[in-house]
């Protein structure tokens, strides 16, 4: 059997790079929030320190097997999502496992992390966790619909579900899908706000109301795993959106610039806005984003 060394290299390095970039973006978010609030803010590597501290906790209480598995499911989903997204266009190392039909597969695997978290949080028996999980899953139903609409519109338009084919279509910046199918982009980016979980869609982890929701009973390394997973997942989602709408990136500098611009959309929205209740956020997702999604499909079909 032939060993594909470049794939192995990619498998090893992609999550590490994703973690570093995701953590740095998390730290940047805190700095930017602080500057907006007229504060100096923490150092940019603050999130990394937090994660190291959480891993170095000496006691880690758990309430059962599922609480072990919940964060593991979450990180599995994040890393798997990352593996099926081509990080760098036309690169042999960072293409990883993108194969035919991967958009539909990604739609499934992106939900898996939330479900794993829900199972883990359910084991803890904390009422705040249960409330947070129910809010989170309701909101998931909310933003998945416009997101799927947007992806379906793109699939119909280009007659493919393969991300590499989509990347091949966008060989010049005038042909980026953001320009070819703007309504799909609008629907997807509004769903993206909900996916990232910043305000106004942060009712899931509302710290003052339900004590940080699902992870309220998680401490130490479990919380550390969750934060790691969150960092990787953030990067994976950003790369996915860059690949679909912004024509991917052929080197790391371009990738960082594009993902950073995309990332600033939910972050800056989050700083400005207060919080939606669950039913308000679902109502929001099922009004304008859904409308844009339907328009996108109609434009493609007719």
């Amino acid at each position, binding site marked *: 059997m032939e060993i594909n060394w470049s794939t192995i290299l990619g498998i090893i390095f992609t999550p590490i790079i994703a973690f570093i970039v995701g953590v740095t973006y998390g730290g940047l978010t805190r700095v930017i929030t602080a500057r907006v609030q007229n504060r100096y803010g923490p150092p940019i590597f603050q999130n990394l*320190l937090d994660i190291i501290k959480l891993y170095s906790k*000496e*006691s880690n209480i758990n309430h059962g097997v599922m609480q072990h598995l919940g964060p593991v499911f979450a990180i599995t989903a994040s890393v798997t999502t990352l593996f099926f997204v081509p990080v760098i266009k036309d690169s042999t190392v960072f293409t990883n496992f993108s194969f035919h039909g991967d958009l539909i597969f990604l739609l499934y695997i992106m939900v898996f992390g939330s479900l794993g978290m829900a199972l883990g949080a359910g084991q803890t028996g904390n009422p705040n966790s249960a409330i947070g999980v129910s809010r989170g899953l309701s909101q998931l139903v909310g933003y998945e619909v416009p997101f799927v609409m947007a992806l379906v519109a793109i699939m119909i338009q280009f007659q493919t579900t393969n991300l590499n084919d989509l990347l091949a279509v966008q060989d010049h910046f005038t042909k980026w899908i953001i320009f070819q199918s703007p309504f799909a982009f609008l629907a997807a980016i509004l769903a993206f706000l909900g996916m990232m979980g910043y305000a106004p869609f942060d009712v899931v982890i509302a710290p003052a109301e339900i004590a*940080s929701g699902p992870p309220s009973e998680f*401490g130490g390394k479990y919380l550390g795993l969750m934060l790691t997973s969150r960092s990787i997942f953030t990067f994976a989602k950003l790369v996915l959106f860059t690949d679909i709408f912004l024509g991917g990136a052929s080197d790391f500098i371009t990738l960082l610039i594009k993902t950073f611009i995309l990332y600033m959309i939910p972050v800056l929205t989050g700083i400005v806005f207060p919080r939606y209740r669950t039913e308000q956020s679902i109502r929001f997702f099922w009004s304008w984003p859904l409308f844009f999604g339907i328009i996108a499909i109609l434009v493609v079909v007719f």
Partner: protein
Amino acid sequence: MYNDKEASKIVDIIKNFARKHSLWIVAYGTGCGAIELPPTMTSRYDAERFGIRGSATPRQADVLLITGYLSVKTLKRVIRTYEQMQEPKYVIGFGSCTINGGMYWDSYNTIKALDRYLPVDVYINGCMPRPEAVISGFIKLQELIAQGKADGAKRYQENLEWYRENQRKVIKNWRMPEYNW
């Protein structure tokens, strides 16, 4: 060759560095001291510069701030909160009420010396301490952590009998669950 002792020393330094710069507080908010925390955390004094951040639940937290007098009824809850926290954990006594009773020195329902009931790492003096004093207390705690001297949780486990005896003396009807922290 690879030296086991030296390697663990280096790991300890990294761990202590991370612990020192990432203090999550579960602000229990007893007494009047809780009002000093909003200015400490917000833009005037900005404690987030030092990695100090609020956390929602005791499971996620590192530092327990006792912000003021502790009535017997509250002490019960504070002990439960403290025992739910994950090690290493630190306690900061805040204001003169936690040190010697302060202005509640003759009250029938407040304890007068916090370190008889919980292992205190740092006391911050004042009634109430201003945010500068709070931040200087946190920096003192950071120094202790860097030197590996902030071992309140270890002391609590080693002298558990003594602490329990004191707690039971005050809390007459002891109906507390046992935690395997």
